[in-house]
């Protein structure tokens, strides 16, 4: 299996799918001439021409909406939002059109559109540019919400997204673009709604997704030294949520910690925790712990920003609370 970066995994999947199917087009700001803010679309303008790699004005509402119209007529647009923060300007198009047209048309048309770009905090991008919006989108039926954490997932989930018939909110992460990993060859695809047991363990289940997976894995390795054997579940998609995999893990470990980058209130971890309780209440030996970002707009100063995002120490403490080992160092 070749090693690819997360970025290359995305880019090569775009190339493969565009080679395969002329219906696949790219649209977004600075994806062509500029090569993409994070270079995910580097050289694709040259390769596929301006009809298929469409640079747009700064008109998120307009070009997301236009892409939905394209999808209704049979194209498979892959829209790049420079960051997901800007997609809030297109929120109406995403939730009121993309997510609902199939339904209110009585199934007459599909909206096969992928909207992709980096989600979550970068480094010191401050309040307007650091939001992790998965819970916001995952609330709306009609959307798929996908959070690839590795290069293989970037490829496998993007392929499924592009070959599907429905709108997909594809949440990448700027910190991951440079990450390397093995990626299966060929038409490798990963199904939606199937979580991955990223690490098998027996003492506690740590549920994570996207960038937070790596935090969870690092913690798991670290805790082994202390004799704590954590199982790490990587959700891969939030809508649909793979309740079964999570619940069966918790039924084994009897303890769960959910990690999310964003604000705690009404965030993704709340939903995941509530779901665990609903299906494994009698299995739980301790309350589910939520590890989340601080409930504040993201501050610019690095020192404050570091206080605002979850760290290994937070996960370790949460794990120990579920094991009633709070007193112990860590």
């Amino acid at each position, binding site marked *: 299996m070749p090693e690819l970066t997360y970025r290359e995994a995305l880019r090569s999947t775009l190339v493969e799918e565009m080679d395969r199917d002329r219906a696949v087009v790219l649209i977004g700001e600075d994806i062509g001439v500029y090569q993409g803010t994070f270079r995910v679309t580097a050289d694709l303008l040259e390769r596929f021409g*301006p009809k298929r790699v469409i640079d747009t004005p700064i008109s998120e509402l307009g070009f997301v909406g236009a892409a939905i*119209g394209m999808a209704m007529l*049979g194209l498979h647009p892959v829209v790049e939002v420079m960051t997901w923060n800007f997609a809030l300007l297109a929120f*109406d198009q995403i939730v009121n059109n993309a997510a609902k047209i199939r339904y209110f048309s009585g199934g007459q048309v599909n909206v096969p559109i992928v909207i992709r770009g980096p989600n979550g905090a970068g480094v010191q991008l401050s309040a307007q540019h650091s939001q992790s919006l998965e819970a916001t989108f995952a609330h709306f039926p*009609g959307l798929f919400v996908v959070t690839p954490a590795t290069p293989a997932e970037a490829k496998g989930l993007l392929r499924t997204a592009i070959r599907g018939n429905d709108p997909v909110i594809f949440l990448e992460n700027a910190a991951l673009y440079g990450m390397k990993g093995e990626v299966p060859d060929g038409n490798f695809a990963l199904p939606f709604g199937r979580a991955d047991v990223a690490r098998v363990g027996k003492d506690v289940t740590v549920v994570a997704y996207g960038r937070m997976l790596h935090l969870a894995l690092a913690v798991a390795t670290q805790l082994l030294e202390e004799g704590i054997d954590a199982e790490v579940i990587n959700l891969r998609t939030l809508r649909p949520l793979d309740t079964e995999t999570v619940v069966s893990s918790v039924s084994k470990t009897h303890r769960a910690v959910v990690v999310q980058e964003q604000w705690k209130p009404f965030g993704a971890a709340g939903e995941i925790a509530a779901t665990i309780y609903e299906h494994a209440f009698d299995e739980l030996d301790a309350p589910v712990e939520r590890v989340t970002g601080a409930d504040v707009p993201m501050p610019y100063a690095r020192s404050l920003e570091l206080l605002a995002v979850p760290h290994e120490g937070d996960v370790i403490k949460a794990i120990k609370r579920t094991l009633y080992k709070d007193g112990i160092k860590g």
Partner: protein
Amino acid sequence: MQRTEDLTREELTAALEWYAKMVLSRRFEDAAERAFRHGKIGGYLHVYSGQEAVAAGLLSAIRKDDIFFTAYRDHAHALYSGSPPGAVMAELYGKATGLAKGKGGSMHLFDASRGFYGGYGIVGGHIPLATGAAYTLRYLDTDRLCLCFLGDGAMNSGSFHEPANMAGLWGRDGLCPIVYIVENNQYAMGTSVSRSSAVANLASRFLAYEIENERADGMDYFTVRRVASRVINQVRETGRPYAVEMLTYRFAGHGAADLFQPYRNRGEVTDARTRDPITLLEDRLRAAELLTDADVERIRREAEHAVEQAVKFADESPEPAADELFKDVYGS
């Protein structure tokens, strides 16, 4: 107003069919309002009475494989493009036999097989869709085109501005065969154009996007139709967007709940009714001796009958099955 003397016999004759369609849609709207009062139709109901010449003039000029989008004031558009009145009424009734299986209702008529891509409830929200759809028609190497109907009120939204600019850009390469039809009926709910738009001439706004544009009398079917034919030929040929502002008037309240209409006085409505698009067309066809009293009577009766049948069909149709609730959320 297009002078009758300038019209060809062919144009006049072809209009007969559209006269009948306009009569039908007016009757249809009346019936829908009645059904609303009787609690047969729920939610919002926005009728098209007064504006018939606009949709009729445009939709009579397109090809069968062309497509169009509009907002929630959409019944006539569906009827004109050939959707069965029964299926339209059934949709308003929320029945399984409705155009969208009863899932969309009055605001979301949809008949993709006839080129009608909806029926949208968020003001302006369909304009980006239509613009992207137009791009697609050229991308697919066809010479089909797209009509995008929108209200005067919708022009003040970002949902208008952003795609209009993109259409201007794409049009340079002949990649945006779209006609924007501003149905300027003078009001957005209770807000007159003069109170909501900084400029009086709405067509002129398209200059900001390098989109060719013009205004026309939207009450006169022949004027609309002439403009439509010319513009549609041009757009089909060039792949460049074009905008027409059709000056028209809404006879009824904004929606079925808009009873008091504090924003306009009765006199204004009465005045506007003197230029009822249906009467205007009728008079011209009579003058051209294509329509007799008997014809008018027959057409009226046929329309009434068709509407009665539609109401009956809607009334007797079954509710959607319970399992429809969870269908059509996802396609895969």
